[in-house]
């Protein structure tokens, strides 16, 4: 005979044996006492809290032969009770609703219902996992369920009542089962262990009760597991090892490492935990509950029963919490709660843990928003009174701010969760340190002195994104609205010097087009494979000299889209012939193949060269190199140069420099007006 698991061996056989679910037992007792017994019951609730058990006890209560009618205290010894316990009573049918889902099964069942029970008082039909019945099976039940023969009782049990049609629900008396409190599970476990003759200590029982998370069957499955795996009495450490639950001390060490910004230590702990074969998902979950405990310990003066910890553990938690900042702890809890989900899904949970820990250990320091605002107001006042940039000591950092942000600080905001721009700080008003300042505004007023440079633009306070900080602030200066430097003039008619792009055109295919800004990929990534050489690549070098001439032709163009013709490579532009090259089959090539466009070009060229005859127009198509001598390309280069100049001007602007020296950040990104935001 194989082993009977504890959950089956210790299945309660009477209402008095039951643990928890008093509200159900009490209601049933009252119904029996008053003789108001329904003909259909629906038991629903989480796994392992007693639904099937109560269904069977109910069957005994209804059918027990030792009393003259239904009784709340079945004897357990009469033949009906015994047979129900053994699942062999002919009048009590327990059906696996998930296996017999079809309507045929229900019809078969219904055929037997009109006949009186063979021996018992009632014919009882228990359908477990009833949510799995098919729709037609449910519908076939409806009539019977509403008006069953007087000798028939139905009991349904399911974990998923929402999958049961409302027409069924409305015909049943519904009982919602609840998760069991840990104390009750603990008491039951102790009772069973004593009866089984297995020694134990408190820690062992608490651990099993905690891991069961409110389900008695889970508790007993775990108990089976720890009894089977240990020799002699159950002890806390043994149970922890057998259940794969990490020792609390390891969790504390990890929390200390994260708080102390020591990723190396944190990674070595993960290594240790993995080597010991712990369940990493459970580990991540336990670590989350530790963050919760730390937050509670930090912000609640007398945590009392809010911390469900043994005494020495409580002392450790309080000590760690004391050394940390409340907002920082909240942020870590939030960040870790996301990691737990990822760990559950990942095939390599270890990597997920490691990467999350690396980022958390390097999280940016927190700077209270209030303080930043106060400093901004200060800065504004100083600038307003004309002392801008003259004395960096004029606005010393205020109390509470402990040095510059960590170098890696801002980069946490670059994950999928980009920084969320928050409201400009104005509504917060002046910080506690800046009373009597009219109104803290994010828009610095223009300097009054003529020697002061123009206001560089607006400032945005953004939150550190990924760690979900409540008060972590980063400052991103936004580039000036107006460029300080005047835009370079349009291309001059004189012959330009040998341009850079020409080299690129010649060297195309042999080298990367742009130096990478990506250091990490650079370090280890191999050189990219050279792209395959193109066939019939047009030779566009002669066009270089023609760009300016072509621009002067386009200057007098009428009746054709300029933007399209600017894309053409002017292979030849003379009084005799205009030859333009386009990428084969491109949108531009198709547009230019229209005769009215070509006519317009010829008229413009005739006007520009002041000749009698319009020149011949030739459209050349083929493969173009990547960088081509066109007006459009030249304009693009010019635009980029302007942009770079504007960005440089913003970066070196005295106001920005002064601001950075005050708040201790660095410029991560400069956006110009009209830039497309990076998503």
């Amino acid at each position, binding site marked *: 005979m*194989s*082993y009977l*698991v504890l959950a*089956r061996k210790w299945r309660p056989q009477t209402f008095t044996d039951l643990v928890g679910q008093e509200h159900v037992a009490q209601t049933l007792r009252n119904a029996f006492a008053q003789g108001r017994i329904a003909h259909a019951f629906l038991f629903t609730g*989480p*796994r392992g809290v007693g639904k099937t058990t109560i269904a069977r006890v109910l069957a005994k209560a209804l059918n027990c032969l030792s009393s003259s009618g239904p009784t709340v205290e079945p004897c357990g010894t009469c033949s009906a009770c015994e047979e129900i316990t053994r699942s062999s009573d002919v009048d009590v049918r327990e059906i*696996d609703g*998930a*296996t017999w*889902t079809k309507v045929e099964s229900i019809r078969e069942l219904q055929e037997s219902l009109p006949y009186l029970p063979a021996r018992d008082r009632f014919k009882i039909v228990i359908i*477990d*996992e009833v*949510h*799995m019945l098919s729709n037609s099976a449910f519908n076939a039940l409806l009539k019977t369920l509403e008006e069953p023969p007087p000798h028939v009782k139905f009991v349904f049990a399911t*974990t998923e009542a929402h999958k049961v049609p409302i027409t069924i629900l409305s015909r049943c008396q519904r009982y919602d089962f609840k998760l069991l409190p840990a104390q009750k599970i603990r008491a039951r476990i102790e009772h069973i262990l004593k009866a089984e003759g297995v020694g134990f200590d408190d820690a062992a029982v608490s651990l099993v009760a905690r891991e069961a998370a409110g*389900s008695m*069957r889970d508790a007993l*499955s775990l108990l*089976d*597991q720890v009894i*089977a*795996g240990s*020799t002699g009495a159950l002890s806390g450490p043994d149970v922890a090892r057998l259940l794969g639950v990490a020792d609390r001390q390891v969790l504390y060490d990890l929390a200390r490492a994260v708080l102390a*910004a020591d*990723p190396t230590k944190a990674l070595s702990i993960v290594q240790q935990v*993995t080597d010991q074969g712990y369940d990493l998902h459970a580990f991540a979950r336990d670590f989350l509950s530790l963050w919760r405990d730390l937050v509670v310990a930090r912000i609640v003066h007398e945590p009392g029963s809010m911390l469900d910890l043994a005494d020495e553990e409580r002392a450790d938690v309080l000590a760690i919490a004391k050394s940390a900042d409340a907002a920082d702890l909240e942020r870590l809890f939030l960040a870790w709660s996301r990691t737990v989900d*990822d760990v*559950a899904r*990942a*095939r*390599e949970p270890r*990597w*997920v843990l*490691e*990467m*999350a820990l*690396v*980022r958390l250990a*390097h999280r940016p320091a927190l700077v209270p928003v209030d303080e930043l605002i106060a400093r901004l107001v200060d800065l504004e006042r100083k600038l307003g009174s004309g002392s801008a940039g003259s004395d960096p000591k004029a606005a010393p950092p205020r109390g509470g701010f402990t040095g510059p942000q960590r*170098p*890696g600080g801002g*980069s946490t905001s*670059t*994950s*999928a969760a980009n920084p969320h721009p928050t409201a400009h700080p104005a509504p917060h008003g002046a910080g506690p340190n800046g009373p009597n300042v009219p109104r803290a505004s994010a828009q610095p007023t223009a300097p009054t002195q003529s020697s002061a440079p123009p206001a560089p633009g607006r400032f945005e306070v953004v939150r550190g994104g*990924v760690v979900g900080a409540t008060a972590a602030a980063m400052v991103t200066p936004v580039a000036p609205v107006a460029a300080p430097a005047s835009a370079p003039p349009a291309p001059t008619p004189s012959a330009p010097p040998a341009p850079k792009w020409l080299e690129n055109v010649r060297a195309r295919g042999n080298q990367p087009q*742009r130096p*990478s800004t*990506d*250091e*990490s*990929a*650079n*370090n*280890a*990534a*191999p050189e*990219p*494979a050279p792209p395959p050489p193109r066939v019939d690549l047009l030779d566009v070098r002669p066009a270089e000299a023609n760009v300016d001439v072509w621009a002067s032709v386009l200057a007098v163009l009428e009746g054709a889209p300029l933007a399209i013709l600017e894309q053409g490579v002017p292979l030849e532009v003379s009084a005799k012939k205009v030859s333009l090259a386009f990428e084969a089959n491109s949108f531009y090539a198709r547009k230019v193949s229209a005769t009215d466009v070509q006519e317009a070009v010829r008229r413009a060229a005739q006007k520009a060269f002041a000749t009698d005859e319009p020149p011949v127009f030739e459209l050349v198509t083929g493969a173009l190199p990547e960088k081509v001598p066109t007006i459009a390309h030249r304009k693009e280069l010019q635009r980029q140069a302007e942009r770079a100049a504007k960005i440089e001007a913003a970066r070196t602007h005295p106001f920005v420099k002064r601001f950075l020296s005050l708040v201790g950040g660095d410029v991560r990104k400069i956006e110009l007006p009209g830039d497309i935001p*990076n998503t």
Partner: protein
Amino acid sequence: MAEPEQPKGDPIQGLRSVRAQSAAKEFLQHALSGGRLSTALLFEGPDGVGKERCARALAQCSLCLAKQPDGDACGRCAICRAIDAQKYPDVITLARTLDVLTQQEQTGADLKSEIVVDKIRELQRERLSYMPHGAIRWVIVRDAHELNANASNALLKTLEEPPANTHFVLATHRPSELLVTVRSRCQRVRFATLPESDVIAILASRGVEAALAKEAAKWAEGSAGRALAMADPELLASRKSWLERLLAALRAGKPGAVVEVSEAFSKEAAAKEGDEVLVVLEMLERYFRDEAIAAATDARKSTVLAARSQLVRQTIASLDSNLKAQMAVESMLVRLRDVR
């Protein structure tokens, strides 16, 4: 029975022939000798670390004709050999790809994408409604997370109160995908990743050449199953070259290069069997992870690299939800480029 495609490796001869996994083996042996082995076991741990092998070894221990003094199976008696050869009638394997009755590989229309309820019903009707031949009958569910909702539900009652002398072993590397109602009925046995030396030894026993075995084991994260899948010189080279091309596209930082490599990659992956995209992306995740750990003390660099590793992980998760591979890879590369 069809000839296996590759050499079968060492025969299963009791628990001692299962490599590493000392905690799991110790627990099982202990439970078996103490008569407290649960009738529903859940073997969870990475794929390809010997869960099913261990289940068969356990079956041998319970049925062996000439048990050794320590309770382990002899590995040589008729029953042990029959279990190893998967020909013993009381050790039933339930798997998506196996027929319940014949235990043969299914093909064509019979092959479903998950374990369907009909299979469970067939098991209950055709295999479990009779008394077992010997003392104990075993049902080994391979990749139990492939049980669909109906099948899992149909198994619930049987798992909780199985027919006499019947034991279930559910093996899975994705325990969180099982119904909680299934998990709550099982005793969990955890399997750890294998040390690299064991992975190499397992590959060697299957006739993989030493240098290749070493290289494959490096990428296999302690899973002999994955190492075996990697131990094809051409495949390994192609995967590594894709990893390099993805990194190169990332480095070049051009939209054109990104689109080009994503398209070529997903096309080639689609032409191959199995989940090439997934495998290469996991190599990419691992690449960033290794780099991040190497740079752990450099706050800025390690944060960026960790963020990249996480981004690849998110992409892998989105692949599971049927997003088109090319789009997923494209958007991943674009976003990776922006992480700095």
